[in-house]
């Protein structure tokens, strides 16, 4: 440090070099705490996201097995009616059985045939059905078709379940592994992009389960939540902070709102059940109701954040606007609220993020459910992404573990998109005065 002549006021006082060194050390320490805090938070985030990604990325591919399938007319249309209505009900499993039978002619015992069939997804027959219904010309031909493998096989091929344990500890038995290896040897097994995961609704067959239904459900739910919680929350906060007289009534409202923030989310579910379902007879399991229930839960967060953001706007800004003849409402709408927007958006994004990840209140209104069909609108039965994660996490099938992580990843993409929008808006509004 440059030798800097001690000034008169400071000579003889204890603001010596030692004290300054201490102060600078304190400064460095303080800054270090800041960095540490950020490092802790970010590394936890990275660890968490990393572990999800590592566990989940395998769900984006799926094992497929190539079979030469003959679309036998006698199976699809045994009576020769030519009526597509009847084709839909045919036993397409038989086509797979015959094809596998042709490939492995030695397999005859019913037990063995069942084991052989278990290589292919139990849902593959529906794929064949859809192929035929799309293109009736297939009937009578033989095609080489990539069919989805059963989840157990998929897990084995991906190396998630081990081969090197005793046979009784495996779901895939020795004979099945032998057949699989034979298929691998001739190049009839591949891992391909698993598009179905993004386009299908829920299923209890892991290899057929998809996330699209939950995405649509989450979308509708969040839209309703946002449409209700944001305006009502902001308006309430504006009223309380800018217009309401400061008296016992507003104290009551303020305490009440703070208290609502501490109400466990499942209690909001009970409220939603009592009001929306039991009194107004709205449909169960519908995103409309889910959204309204989550909006009740999100409101306090938005109100509290908006109020503190409004309170932080300097009075001079209001006075300036009032002085040029703006009405109090115009002052709020044109000046105070835009200036408070970053804080409002933070509150909204945190509240919405929580609503997006919430399952407990939805339990009460019937959204924690197995719903395979894609919801067509906000009043159709639907589930949401966190519920899908929750349900898959509780499923016995091993293959759902990777789906659970993958669904979480999808949820995070959703969340990041939502955050991105908020960041953009926040940047637009933010300034320091």
């Amino acid at each position, binding site marked *: *440090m*440059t030798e*800097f*002549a001690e*000034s*008169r*006021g*400071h000579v003889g*006082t*204890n*603001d010596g070099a030692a*004290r*300054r060194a201490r*102060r*600078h050390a304190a400064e460095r320490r303080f800054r270090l705490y800041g960095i540490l805090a950020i490092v802790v938070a970010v590394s936890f985030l990275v660890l968490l996201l990393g572990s999800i990604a590592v566990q989940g990325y395998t769900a984006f591919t799926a094992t497929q097995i190539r079979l030469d399938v003959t679309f036998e007319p006698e199976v699809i249309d045994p009576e020769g009616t030519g009526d597509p209505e009847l084709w839909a009900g045919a036993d397409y499993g038989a086509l797979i059985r015959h094809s596998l039978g042709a490939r492995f002619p030695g397999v005859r015992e019913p037990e063995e045939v069942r084991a052989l069939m278990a290589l292919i997804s139990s849902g593959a027959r529906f794929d064949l059905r859809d192929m035929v219904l799309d293109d009736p010309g297939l009937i009578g031909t033989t095609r080489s078709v990539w069919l989805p493998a059963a989840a157990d096989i998929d897990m084995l091929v991906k190396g998630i379940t081990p081969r090197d344990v005793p046979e009784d500890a495996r779901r895939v038995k020795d004979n099945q592994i032998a057949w699989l290896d034979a298929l691998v040897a001739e190049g009839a097994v591949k891992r391909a992009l698993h598009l179905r995961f993004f386009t299908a609704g829920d299923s209890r067959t892991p290899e057929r389960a998809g996330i699209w239904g939950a995405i649509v459900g989450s979308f509708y739910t969040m839209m309703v939540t946002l449409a209700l919680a944001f305006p009502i929350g902001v308006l309430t906060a504006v009223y309380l902070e800018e217009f309401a007289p400061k008296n016992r009534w507003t104290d009551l409202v303020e305490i009440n709102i703070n208290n609502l923030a501490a109400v466990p989310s499942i209690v909001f579910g009970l409220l939603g059940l009592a009001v929306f379902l039991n009194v107004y007879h709205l449909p169960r399991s519908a995103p409309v109701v889910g959204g309204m229930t989550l909006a009740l839960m999100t409101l306090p967060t938005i109100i509290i954040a908006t109020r503190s953001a409004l309170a932080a706007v300097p009075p001079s800004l209001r006075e300036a606007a009032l002085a040029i003849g703006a009405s109090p409402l115009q002052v709020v709408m044109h000046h105070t609220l835009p200036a408070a927007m970053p804080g409002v958006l933070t509150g909204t994004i945190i509240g919405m993020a929580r609503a997006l990840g919430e399952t407990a209140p939805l339990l009460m209104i019937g959204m924690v459910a197995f719903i395979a069909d894609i919801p067509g609108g906000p009043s159709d039965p639907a589930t949401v992404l966190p519920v899908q994660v929750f349900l898959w996490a509780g499923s016995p099938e091993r293959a759902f573990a990777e789906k659970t992580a993958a669904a979480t990843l999808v949820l995070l993409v959703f969340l990041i998109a939502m955050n991105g929008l908020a960041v953009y808006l926040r940047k637009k509004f933010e300034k320091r005065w």
Partner: protein
Amino acid sequence: MEAQTALIGHNRPADATPVKMATRDLDVSYGAIQALAGVELDIRENEVTALIGPSGCGKTTFLRCLNRMNDTIEGCVVSGLVTLDGHDIYDRSLDVVQLRARIGMVFQKPNPFPKSIYDNAAYGPRIHGLAANRDELDEIVVTSLEKAGLWKEVRDRMGEPGTSLSGGQQQRLCIARAIAVSPEVILMDEPCSALDPIATARIEELIDELRENYTIVIVTHNMQQAARVSQRTAFFHLGQVVEMGDTVELFTNPQDERTQGYITGRFG
């Protein structure tokens, strides 16, 4: 540029005190915008130096260079030499904290902390450890409030928030706050611009009293004020010092026609 150097040389009053602060070839830019170019100025001890000039001419920027407050502004680049008692204050090893303790600052808008009057005045001494105990601290607070001419008005309400005072009182509180650290130089950025004539007169008196113990640099838009309180005046124009000299002389006999134009109110 040469003319300026000459001015500094020629207009030195006979009873010149030593140079407390000096700048040489000072350039400041905010990103692409050049705010100051080649400013060379001497500030003398126990004098009031007034900086005048039209808005946006770089007076405040210059002032903020003197205690390195420009450090807190994103994208501000300072080059050239600024010295305090002959030491470069932009030396990388210099301790800004100590520098600012020696060079106090009063802002255009009164900015008392949202604390009590006492805590406002005691803030500086506390962080710099100027008082060994409560009694000493009380004494510093009282003295600086007295020096700032505020003591009589606030002695009975030291616990009240600083923000509850009137504008003029707030500004005197900010001066007291600056004085409490016993700085050598006090920088004042249009300290009276938000005040009424009576409060302004109080502050001007105060500046005159403070001159005895402190070196003061004041930015002002008010020509009369500059004439009243300062011994020396510098006229800034477009980021440069056009003219610098004895206040009386500068106002009665400006050398540069831009200075003349400004002080006679023809532009600015």
